[in-house]
């Protein structure tokens, strides 16, 4: 079995995530795109685990999921406060700190 298609897929997912971070204004969406990048990594990890014939990659994928969950907790908390203060979830509105 060739791993190539999986890796390509994961790369495409990663790229989509990347582009999403760069283009979307809504903080939640931006954050979801980051999650997409993490999941692209998960796919790659699992693929390589299969190819390498050991479990480390799969274990890794689990860890990533846990970490992602933790990130969500923290991230949403921050985004929520910002939203409550500014009545906006646009990341472009938060640009007081500059130069």
């Amino acid at each position, binding site marked *: 079995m060739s*791993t190539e298609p999986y*890796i390509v897929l*994961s790369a495409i997912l*990663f790229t989509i*995530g*990347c582009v999403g*971070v760069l283009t979307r204004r809504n*903080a939640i969406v*931006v*954050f979801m795109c*980051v999650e997409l*990048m*993490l999941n*692209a*990594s998960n796919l*790659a*990890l699992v*693929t*390589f*685990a299969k*190819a*390498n*014939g*050991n479990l*480390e*990659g799969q*274990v*890794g994928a689990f*860890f*990533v999921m846990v*970490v992602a969950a*933790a*990130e969500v907790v*923290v*991230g949403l*908390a*921050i*985004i929520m*406060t*910002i939203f*409550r*203060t*500014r009545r906006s979830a646009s*990341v472009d509105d*938060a*640009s*007081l*700190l*500059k*130069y």
Partner: protein
Amino acid sequence: MIEFSKPVIGYAEVWPMLLVFGVACAGVLVEAFAPRRVRYATQVLLALVGLAAAFVGTVMIGLDLNETAGGAAKGGITAEGAIVVDGPAIFLWGLILLIAVGGLLLFAERELEGGVSAFAGQAAALPGTEAEREASTRGLDHTEVFPLMMFAVGGMMLFPASNDLLTMFVALEVLSLPLYLLSGLARRRRLLSQEAALKYFLLGAFSSGFFIYGIALVYGYAGTMEFGGINEAISNNTGNRTLLLAGMGLISVGLLFKVGAAPFQAWTPDVYQGAPTAVTGFMAAATKVAAFGALMRLYYVAFGNERWSWQPMLWVIAILTMLVGALLAIAQSDIKRMLAYSSVAHTGFLLTGVLGAQSASELSSGEITSLQAVLFYLVTYGFMTLGAFAIVSMVRDAGGETNHLSRWAGLGKESPIVAGIFAFFLLSMAGIPLTAGFTGKWAVFAVAMSAGAWPVVVVAVLTSALAAFFYVRVIVLMYFADPVGAGPSVTLPSVLTAVTIALGVAATLLLGIVPGPVLDLAAHAGEFIR
């Protein structure tokens, strides 16, 4: 079928780190169950005792380390290969814990704000609302900052001690997540603080996306996540090199982001400015220590055999970082942003030390090693940064801290001691001899020069000159300029901040004049265990 056996953790080696995590968890419990009026005292005491105990433990473990690898290194790998407790790890632990103590004291400071801490009374309350006003009149404190900080410290300890990519990733997240939150908890200028937290969080998450994808690729190349295994795979030259290089690059992005190297430095000024000053000081010092420890372990151990390909990359990054840091600092008018860029420049100097890695056979006896130089620099950097930010937190007016440089004019007349100490830190950062900054700089330049990276050293020297300009500008402002309006005032802090500053001054002075013991300690730490 693999027979299940109980994993061996090696508590004897890693207990200080576990203790810190334990204290963090206990802190959460205190927050949940202790009555509000005792929470502050309990939390501070708990954290302080925890850090102190961890530090003592670190020292004891350090004294006990066994020599391995023919005496070149000390310590061993434990926790099923996930954690390595070797000389450099212990050294970094000790350093992180000391900085954490200093940071903790700053966190606990309540004199400056008139009886409350620098953190938001109630983070969930909207700025300018009744709820917030009530929280502030009632003198509410977020004592959660202490457990959060302990989690971060725990992550920082794990970061440079991790022996595989996955542990490193987890450590990275454990240290980062609490910091994201802490950045957003300022009592004053809430909007800026929250914005800092958001930016830090989004960019941090984005970079960890790169980091984990890089891990995946390297895993794909080497078939293992263990550093030793990766190194072996590289020397055997099996697998697809493109995977390795791309993976290495992406992992580097995650780490370079954490240390604030250009072109990944964009978050530093904004976050340093927006975050509460105590957090900035702690974060600037401790994160850099932990991240450089991890960076070096990754490059020296996992990619040790690939040195010739990452060294040129680091040349570029180091040069870029120093230039960006020094150049942009010139244009700053906010003291915290200026210190942020200065910290970027310091990252560049540290990278200069990192890229000066040479194999043992290339070094002559008694010659300073790259690891030794960087460790030493981290010590000097950590203390002076912590001290400098502590001073920043003391210069205030009615609206809280006055971070705009123009408000610092004439500080030398107003408060000669504070100005003098700050000038001393600035001179140290500028690398004037007889301060720790100089010895640190010398060390990293020397190893880079030995490794033949003279162009980097030349750039480093030139940017040092450039950097001197903005440090000197602040001194001029403090001493030779007349105050504008009412002038700055210095709020006398409690003994907590004073101790931190004293620690910083003492370290900066001693390491400038007699750096020998610390250098020897760094040398004594030996190499990383492969």
